[in-house]
């Protein structure tokens, strides 16, 4: 790999002056490489220090202060007060539950991406067209599509409920569409502003609407492309050998495909959790303002309201570090579990 090292083996056999000379030259070459490397790194590194590394440290420091940009209180170091306050804050726990609830979409979306990839990996005609259409939502994702979905979900005028009402009328089912983005109901029956389950809250509401939209957006996105790539790299002999042994489609999938895909699945799961735990901000800001009754407020939206609507910079920094710690811990757990799974 490293040409300097391979040279090293040759020169040790020669003795005396040549060895010393080549050694000096090598050290010199190393030094010029280091200096050049510094030169090449500088533009990116300066920006990195100013806008990433510096801010990370700075945010950790001010998490221990009561800094408020509106200067309504005098600046003070408050020790662990922000963190203590956070753990006694009922709202924080409610928003943690919301953030966790949104993770329900992840396994559904990953399984869907895998299913689509398998469907597309059969050398079918029109594969590129299908792939493009599936990829379209994740490619155009953003504020425009969220505003679109907000209108689709409109309980009175939106097309989703119009279709539900029409179907119900024709088949005489007598059901009404859910209230979607203005409803606090959810599939687990989590209570409003409390961390507990109640039957009255069971149903489809704002959180589920956002999850459905998320699955629609992500299912044909980069995860599907990653699975397609992994499937094309799958050694064909393995599948053929299994088929010769009389394995059915499901058995081939379970015993050959799935274990071979483990590294890809692992990567996707880790990235989805990292993204999911810090997600929900755009949806909340564009579609619901965190409501109804705070049910779509995730930790990241909570940080936004604290930092940029109430300007409690110190407290918001503390919350963002707690979020970072949670993401870090869950990634570690994923890593531990994943490596066991991948290695078999």
């Amino acid at each position: 790999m490293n040409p300097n090292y391979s040279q090293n083996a040759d020169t040790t056999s020669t003795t005396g002056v040549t060895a010393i000379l080549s050694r000096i030259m090598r050290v010199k070459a190393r030094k010029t490489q280091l200096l050049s490397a510094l030169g090449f790194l500088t533009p990116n590194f300066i920006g990195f220090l100013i806008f990433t590394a510096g801010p990370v440290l700075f945010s950790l420091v001010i998490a221990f202060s009561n800094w408020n940009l509106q200067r309504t209180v005098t600046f003070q170091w408050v020790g662990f007060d922000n963190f203590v306050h956070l753990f006694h804050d009922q709202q924080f726990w409610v928003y943690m539950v919301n953030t966790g609830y949104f993770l329900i979409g992840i396994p559904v979306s990953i399984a869907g991406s895998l299913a689509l990839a398998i469907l597309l990996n059969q050398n079918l005609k029109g594969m590129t067209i299908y792939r493009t259409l599936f990829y379209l939502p994740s490619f155009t994702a953003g504020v425009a599509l969220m505003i679109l979905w907000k209108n689709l979900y409109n309980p009175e005028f939106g097309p989703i409920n119009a279709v539900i009402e029409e179907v119900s009328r024709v088949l005489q089912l007598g059901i009404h569409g859910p209230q979607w983005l203005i409803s606090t109901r959810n599939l687990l029956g989590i209570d409003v502003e409390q961390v507990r389950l109640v039957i009255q809250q069971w149903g489809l509401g704002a959180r589920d609407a956002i999850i459905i939209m998320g699955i629609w957006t992500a299912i044909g996105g980069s995860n599907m492309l990653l699975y397609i790539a992994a499937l094309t790299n799958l050694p064909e002999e393995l599948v053929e050998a299994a088929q010769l042994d009389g394995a059915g489609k499901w058995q081939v999938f379970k015993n050959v495909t799935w274990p071979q895909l483990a590294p890809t699945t692992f990567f996707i799961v880790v990235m989805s959790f990292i993204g999911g735990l810090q997600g929900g901000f755009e949806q909340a800001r564009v579609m619901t303002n965190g409501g109804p009754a705070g049910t779509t407020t995730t930790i990241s939206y909570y940080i936004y309201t604290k930092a940029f609507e109430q300007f409690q910079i110190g407290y918001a920094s503390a919350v963002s570090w707690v979020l970072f710690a949670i993401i870090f811990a869950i990634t570690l757990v994923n890593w531990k579990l994943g490596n066991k799974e991948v290695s078999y």
Partner: protein
Amino acid sequence: MGATAKKRTNRRKKASLIISHLVLIIIALTMLTPFIWMVLASFKSLEEVEQLRPLPSIWHPENYAQVFQQVAFARYYFNSVFVAIWVTVLTCFTSSMAAFAFSRLKWKHRDTIFKLYLGTMMIPGVVTMIPNYTLMVKLHMLDSFTGLILPAAFTAFGVFLLRQFMMSIPPALDEAATIDGASFWQIFVEIILPLSRAGIVTLAIFTFLGTYGSFYWPLILVKSQHLRTLPIGMLYFDSAYGRQTNLIMAASVMNIVPLIAIFVAGQKFLVKGIQLGAVKG
């Protein structure tokens, strides 16, 4: 294998093919329907938007013109594209140089430092967002193009992606050039950059898209109307005129048309780039 058995497996294959196509078509329609509704709604009168009838009875292309009259939509377009181009150029420039140092030059602790660099990608955006905001306040860059562009132009992701590309270039190439007395800068500009063109195009597309759709940073940074980018413009358009669904949908269509154009033009690079980005470095 007997002839009848062969026929049977052939028939079974055909049946499974048809089922596959059916399933794929249904899914494709699910993906498309919201877009179709959006386009049709953008041509409808306001009363018709709320009706189930899919096609407008009278087409209203003037909805699009009206968007430009109600808000400074052309301005938003310009701002988004202007900021995105600057961020893209700066990112490609700084990332390709850093990637060169991390892939083609040999120095002590290179890979350790690279891993540390990569590790910062795990830090949630909000952690750096708050200090960066206060930094912008101190530097008087709040509500300015510089403030929109600079903090977005130095990513670890770009370095990572281009390093992946540059690692795959055979080392013999720059060794030969070194023997011929070429400087590292010459090697970078004349050998490595042209050979990593695909990677740079991929990074350029990703960066452009990311900046074009970027929401959080412009939302907190921009105060005056004339600096609003498309996503911010859309947000305020929606909250001010949200009842005019047909106009909002026209604006949404105009928002995503450039994205579709870029996608069609750059599809080849994108698919590769996503797959490469996931390969462990």
